[in-house]
């Protein structure tokens, strides 16, 4: 019996060991400055998991997003006046294209920065949203070709100053709008993260929470099982909740047992490459 008891020193995992396991460092050829690139197996190149071009769903969302974006841009050209002025300097300024480009910049920047932080959304949903709304809708909404044609026609009618002004204002305003859109997206994501953190902390600390030290006997409240589980976990002793399942029954008071906490860490294995054995 005495010999079967594991000695305490073998159950401890040194901090260095934990660190070595938690941050794996590349070894062998992978540790080189330029690690060798392993090409994807041919069968995997046609699988949607590895190749976005083989993903039919992406084509669909990009097509739908592009259709919607083009509808918005084309619709704007009916609603807004074509140019800011009937003739002269402001005749070079095309309001519908400018509005569409600015709105698309804002939406795109906000969306991409928000999705980059949104760990609570599933990865597939994030990818489809980013492709559909970001690449499809915003890309179809904004346009550079219309801008270029407008530049061309304006320069042909000798409104050089207006053309240059329109081009520069488009790009500078676009940069400013995109910068603030990115800031807005990050702020929204941070707010959502803070809310989620507050909810998680509240769930972890219910009203009946109290600290239990080893050797102390505790009468568990039965109606709140999560509180009992937390208290028992603190004690390293699961006996408290085993009797507390019947509602309205005060838990049976047990002296704490001194079973050591089980080691749940994986046993470190070093494989022998020649024999395939693990020591």
């Amino acid at each position: 019996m005495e010999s079967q008891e594991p000695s305490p020193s073998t159950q401890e995992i040194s901090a260095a060991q934990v660190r070595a396991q938690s941050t794996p460092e590349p070894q062998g050829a992978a540790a080189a400055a330029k690690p060798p690139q392993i090409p994807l197996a041919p069968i995997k190149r046609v699988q949607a998991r590895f190749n976005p071009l083989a993903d039919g769903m992406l084509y669909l969302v990009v097509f739908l997003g592009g259709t919607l974006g083009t509808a918005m841009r084309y619709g704007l050209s009916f609603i807004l006046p074509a140019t800011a002025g009937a003739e002269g300097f402001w005749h070079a300024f095309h309001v519908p294209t400018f509005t569409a480009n600015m709105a698309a910049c804002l939406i795109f920047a906000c969306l991409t920065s928000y999705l980059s932080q949104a760990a609570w959304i599933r990865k597939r949903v994030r990818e489809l949203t980013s492709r559909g709304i970001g690449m499809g809708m915003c890309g179809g909404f904004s346009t550079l070709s219309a801008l270029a044609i407008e530049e061309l026609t304006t320069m042909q009618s000798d409104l050089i100053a207006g053309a240059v002004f329109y081009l520069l204002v488009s790009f500078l305003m676009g940069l400013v709008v995109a910068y603030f859109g990115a800031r807005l997206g990050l702020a929204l994501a941070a707010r959502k993260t803070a809310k989620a953190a507050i909810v998680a902390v509240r769930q972890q600390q219910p009203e009946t929470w109290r600290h239990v030290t080893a050797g102390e006997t505790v009468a568990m409240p039965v109606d709140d099982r999560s509180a009992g589980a937390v208290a028992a976990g603190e004690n390293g002793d699961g006996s408290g909740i085993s009797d507390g399942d019947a509602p309205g029954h005060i838990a049976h008071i047990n002296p704490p047992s001194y079973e050591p906490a089980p080691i749940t860490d994986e046993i470190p294995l070093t494989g022998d490459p020649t024999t395939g054995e693990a020591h």
Partner: protein
Amino acid sequence: MLFLFVCMCGGLGAVARFVLNTSIQRWWNRMFPLSTFVINVIATFCAGLAAAAWAHQVVPESTYLLFVTGFLGGFSTFSTAINEMVSLARNKHFGMAAFYLAATVVVPVICVSLGWLVGSLAH
């Protein structure tokens, strides 16, 4: 009806951009966002061609609308280019961001003029 077709051409343009973008990004691994730049260069050149064709009355207005407002509008992108500049600048690559900005301002104007010239030449 024409409105719907124009919108669907825009969707096709977006799909074409998606395919080209992914294909270019597969082998291009430098910092310069080549895929968006190439897409915009192609789109503005075609826009110049189309504008020349329309100005010389080679094609009816509906074709011009379908191709330029629809397909090329969905194919070319302003928002992606601007956001690539902003993200380059946010990652402290100011030189590259400025270079990309200058290229995106100047090259499309040159391309659309070239397209116009080629289109006029053919006429």
